């Protein structure tokens, strides 16, 4: 997550949408608290000035590595080019932006699906199991719902499976580089800082940065340097790009499918209180519309889904059942050896006594604030300002009401109770 400071106007759009309240505007510019950021990309989506940028590689890097750059395409890529362009044509067009070979995710998704199904049908799974496919959802659990970490499915994600396989195939040749073409920030981050040692990419490139040259190459007779036609053989991998696709590919009888990070947080809240009853599996996506809704994509996610679904109809859905059986080396190889750890994103202090004092301090400060959550102080709401005051990051005087000594307008009789919404 990077801010292009010169573009930021300190407008406070981003601080309000952040699901972990990780952003503040200080001295007229936005700032991220890295220990809270979950890479969901909500700030990118909402910023009117395009000041937030993904920390990813620029396409010019590919040209420098001319002829030796490989790309792995996220399924969401295929939804971006309209229903007149087939997935295999999209793959061919990547030759024109400097890649020497392109893979799609079908193989990795197939393996992932088998290993996850196998895991879910084994004993001792903590229910509801939560899909760990979306890296932003995993980080949300680590920061805000640490008690649900044991519910995350401990299998390394499909793109890392692909990276490890491609490395074995070709990357022993040290000249070659492997890039992941990503729809979102979280996957870009996951590509360079993977969970498993084998899953590392050379870098990640946002689809949006390649869109124009690809679109140009895809015009009739325009392709200068087409790659050999290849592409997915089945539709199960493509449907992974939108909500419900994963559950379908896993053959889940029942699953709770949720998209959009705030809705995901709502569901996890229920799960944490044990209110989800018999739900066996939660398929959760940070972006509205699943990966097609990724903040580094180009098309409207629903329009993209329409394109993708029209292509999916021309493929058989999935390989024969017999080819789906998981073998035991596979099962173990892709099991996550080190489970996720909680991140202390919401904690006020390491020392419980100090944290208690700070909590009391916040209750005192918040009484002086107007409770209108205007955002002028640069915090998402009054409670967050109170928290920052107690932590020593801000002063009460940042509040225009406090500064001007204005009367706080409270409803008669009962004081408005300030509550943490996030």
């Amino acid at each position, binding site marked *: 997550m990077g801010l292009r400071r010169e573009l930021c106007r300190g407008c406070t759009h981003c601080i309000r949408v952040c699901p972990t309240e990780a952003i503040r505007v200080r001295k007229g510019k936005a700032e991220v608290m890295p220990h809270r950021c979950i890479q969901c990309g909500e700030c990118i989506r909402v910023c009117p000035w395009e000041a937030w940028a993904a920390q990813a590689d620029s396409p010019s890097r590919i040209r420098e590595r001319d002829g030796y750059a490989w790309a792995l395409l996220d399924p969401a890529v295929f939804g971006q080019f309209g229903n007149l362009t087939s997935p295999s044509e999209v793959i061919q067009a990547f030759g024109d932006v400097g890649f020497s070979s392109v893979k799609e995710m079908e193989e990795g998704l197939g393996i992932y699906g088998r290993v996850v199904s196998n895991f879910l049908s084994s004993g001792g799974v903590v229910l509801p199991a939560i899909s760990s496919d979306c890296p932003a959802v995993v980080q949300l659990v680590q920061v805000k719902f640490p*008690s649900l*970490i044991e519910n995350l499915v401990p299998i390394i994600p499909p793109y890392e499976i692909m990276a490890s396989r491609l490395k074995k195939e070709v990357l022993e040749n040290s000249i070659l580089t492997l890039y992941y073409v990503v729809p979102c920030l979280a996957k870009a981050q996951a590509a360079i800082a993977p969970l498993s040692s084998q899953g590392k990419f050379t870098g990640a490139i946002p689809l949006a940065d390649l869109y124009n040259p690809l679109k140009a190459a895809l015009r009739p007779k325009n392709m200068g340097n087409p790659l050999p036609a290849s592409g997915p053989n089945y539709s199960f991998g493509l449907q992974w790009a939108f909500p419900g696709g994963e559950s379908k590919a896993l053959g889940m009888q029942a699953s709770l499918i949720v998209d959009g990070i705030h809705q995901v947080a709502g569901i996890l809240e229920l799960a*944490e*209180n*044990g209110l989800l009853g018999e739900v066996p599996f939660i398929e959760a996506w940070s972006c509205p519309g699943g990966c097609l809704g990724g903040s580094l994509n180009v098309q409207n996610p629903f329009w993209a889904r329409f394109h993708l679904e029209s292509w999916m109809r021309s493929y058989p859905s999935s390989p024969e059942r017999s080819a789906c059986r998981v073998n035991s080396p596979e099962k173990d190889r892709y099991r996550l050896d080190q489970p996720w750890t909680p991140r202390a994103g919401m904690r*006020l202090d*390491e020392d419980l006594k100090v944290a*208690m004092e700070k*909590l009391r301090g916040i209750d005192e400060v918040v009484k002086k604030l107007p409770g209108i959550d205007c955002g002028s102080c640069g915090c998402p709401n009054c409670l967050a300002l109170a928290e920052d005051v107690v932590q020593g990051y801000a002063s009460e005087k940042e509040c225009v009401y406090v500064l001007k000594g204005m009367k706080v307008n409270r409803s008669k009789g009962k004081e408005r109770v300030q509550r*943490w919404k996030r």
Partner: protein
Amino acid sequence: MIGEFEIQGQDFKKAGEASFEIKNRLKRLGLPPDIIRRVATAAYEAELNVIIYAQKGTIRICLEGQCVEVKIDDVGPGIPDIQLAMQEGYTTSPPYVKQLGYGSGMGLPNIKKNSDWMEIQSEVNRGTTLRFKVNLNEQKKKKR
């Protein structure tokens, strides 16, 4: 004291708000995830009991030495037979409450299950005081 919350009887729309806030406060304190989950689950059940049966009530939550203590006072009908009320599946909730999906007779047993110590004092037609504790250093693993 970690927090104090007023609860109105019959206010089903706000069911869960107090325990949600309790959970958020415990997270701010950085307590172990398992402790937070247990306190929040038990507090939610207690909050619902007040909403279903009582006119009004107060939840107070504090940190006492090495445990989280929650105390719920309510003004309401009281519990005539506490032993009976502790039985799983036993409930006196009216049908409209069941229609809302609450009152399945699991409230008190669930509080007991999620806490390390629990006590009920009740006076019929006056009200009930429920207290429960969760020990910080005793991390029981419990299946949901």
